[in-house]
């Protein structure tokens, strides 16, 4: 304790800065830009296809039963967010930020130095395991087409994809579409509820928190290939968490802003509400109560 203090005093007296170095994974600008070009092309192609499909269908021939009721500006939720546990949430947000900076992010950055095929394999493996929970929840949501699709992905990737290490299904145009019990609750009509920052995890709401716990409970109960119980489960859980972190492009307080907590909360809950709106396509938008904050 004393030595760092003395060093700090010496540095201050000497008018010198103290410096910490953090080695980060190298950037890959050529590949990133190539991916952006491909993305832009596929977006343009999708837009063109959508326009052509709409034109072929013809506005007059649209089937009234298929029409999606439109949101109007008056249907936007209020700008405030339901956050009665704000003080605890802020504390947890700070805790998560410190934990992330001290341990989680450095480990994830080291992990990102591993060869890309290895990381893809790990990512695909955990994604494939998650398909089990996805299949159950699509069934609970009554979206049976998606259930079949996810089952197809699981079977293909578990076999041709060598136990899930390769995402062969995606190459067959069966893209990953994960869901969980939080979304199932939303489909059943539950509101997001109060805003919640979960330790080690991050922004959530009461509903999403319940969903998360249920998802863990489900996979623990099913215990596929005996992966979720016993000594190896901890190792797998930690690897899964590191993989998730390494694939999440976010750094606490990179904004430098004292208002970051409020900004993240605002964006997270609006994103959730728009996703909820997508679950009830045939229903007219719920008219928000201007006296209630978003999420309640």
């Amino acid at each position, binding site marked *: 304790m004393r030595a760092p203090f003395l060093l700090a005093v010496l540095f201050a007296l000497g008018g010198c800065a103290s410096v910490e170095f953090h080695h980060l994974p190298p950037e890959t600008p050529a590949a990133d830009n190539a991916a952006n070009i491909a993305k832009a092309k596929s977006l343009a192609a999708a837009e063109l296809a959508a326009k052509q499909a709409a034109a072929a269908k013809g506005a007059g021939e649209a089937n009234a039963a298929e029409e999606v009721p439109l949101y109007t500006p008056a249907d936007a939720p209020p700008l405030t967010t339901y956050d009665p546990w704000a003080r605890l949430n802020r504390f947890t947000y700070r805790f998560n930020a410190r934990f992330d900076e001290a341990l989680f992010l450095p480990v994830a950055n080291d992990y990102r130095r591993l060869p890309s095929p290895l990381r893809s394999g790990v990512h695909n493996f955990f994604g494939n395991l998650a398909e089990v929970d996805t299949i159950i929840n699509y069934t609970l949501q009554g979206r049976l087409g998606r259930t079949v699709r996810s089952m197809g992905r699981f079977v293909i990737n578990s076999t041709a994809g060598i136990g899930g290490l390769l995402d062969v299904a995606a190459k067959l145009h069966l893209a990953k579409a994960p869901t969980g019990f939080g979304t199932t609750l939303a489909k059943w009509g539950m509101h997001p509820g109060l805003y919640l920052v979960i330790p080690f995890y991050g922004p959530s709401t009461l509903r999403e928190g319940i969903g998360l716990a249920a998802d863990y409970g489900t996979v623990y109960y099913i215990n596929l290939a005996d992966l979720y119980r016993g000594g190896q489960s901890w190792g797998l859980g930690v690897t899964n968490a590191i993989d998730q972190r390494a694939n999440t492009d976010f750094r606490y307080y990179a904004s*430098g802003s004292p208002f970051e907590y409020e900004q993240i909360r605002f964006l997270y809950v609006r994103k959730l509400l728009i996703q909820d709106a997508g679950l009830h396509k045939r229903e007219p938008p719920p008219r928000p109560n201007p006296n209630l904050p978003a999420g309640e």
Partner: protein
Amino acid sequence: MKALVLAALAVLFSCDTALADRPPLPPPAAPGPPTGLADSAALRATVFGTPPQDIAPLPQKVPLLEMDLALPWARPVPAIFWFDKRLRVWLSAQDRPAPLAIVISGTGSDGNTAKLSTLRAVLYGAGYHVLTMPSPTFPGFIVSASRTGVAGDLEQDGQDLYDAMVQIIHHLPRKVVVTDIDVLGYSLGGSNAAIVKSIDATEHKLHVHRALMINPPVSLFASVGRLDKLFAITLGHGDAGIEQFYQQLYATLANIYRASDRVELDEDFLLGAAASVLKTDAQFSAAIALTFRLALSNVFFAGDLYSGAGVVIDPRHPPRVGDSLEAISRELRGKSFAEYFTRIFAPYYMKRRPGSTPETLIAQNRLEIIGDALRGDPDYYAQTNSDDLILDAAELAWLKATLGARIVVYDHGGHLGNLGDRRQAADMLQMLGGRWGGAAP
């Protein structure tokens, strides 16, 4: 785009009650009509940035080292800024002796933005060591490196930047051998870069060789005054316009999402939705103005806290860690740069600089203060666009007349909408390499 739409949305948070309309304060100085405000192409280029297919060839890999510095002159860190104690800069070093390019970010931005990442890749690919730094108006810089806490003064910010650069150079890893130093920056960072070179001409601690300004403002206050005006025109002075804009964005996004087959509202979805979310010039203008207002909120907050002006923060009871900042952020949402100038900046600097007036402070924040150096020293360069919305015709003319053949003005691109494209990147490298022979006819 995603970042911009999200930023525009983010600035709206916590506005639960309508604010009373405030009387508009006149911007400090915004002479002449803005050149590009009504130009659709400029607005779209400003929002969307350079299309990926137009980006210059980039290297496969760029190494990255983050350096976090505690600077000896930093003021005591207010508890609420606990996360901004150290100045964060990013270094990409060659494994052989090479010139160092120091790149300064634009207004309110940190030292690792997407724009900086593009410039870093181009410069690293051309053989430079590259050091990217935050803007002196970024909260992390204000807290860790500013001597005043009141950002926006060209000279003071330039001095803080310069001293921080000196410390960084002293602390570079030993294996990094620097043969020459050039400084460049985009937007306000461009003006900062030129000031840094001018300070070095007196202090000789860095021996800066060349300075390049990319889309710089000539007068910070005039440019920002223009953005204030843009905000007032598109969103008004009270809450109604802002709330309306939020509701429009929300409804449009919800409709696109409901019509799509997507499961998650992710980056790809936002990218696809971008073209439909903002359609009219007014919406593009509003998004630009809001994004700027978001950056200003941080500068305003820090300035009020450090100066003790008491505009939105009670100096006797400053917010503590864990306190809600909703009320303050709501209030700041309605504050223009003109108000920052009149209530925080001007009183603070008038006290520090006896005899100064608001008018002299505005004059001190124009690039004209280093006009002689810009005219006479062949190592200053600039790149800008004829439709850059932060410049008016007179300012563009002044830049051209002052820099002569050392400025290139592209026809299109708005504000930074062509950063990193093939031509801009090639010209930038020629300028920094001393090979610039003037703009192609």
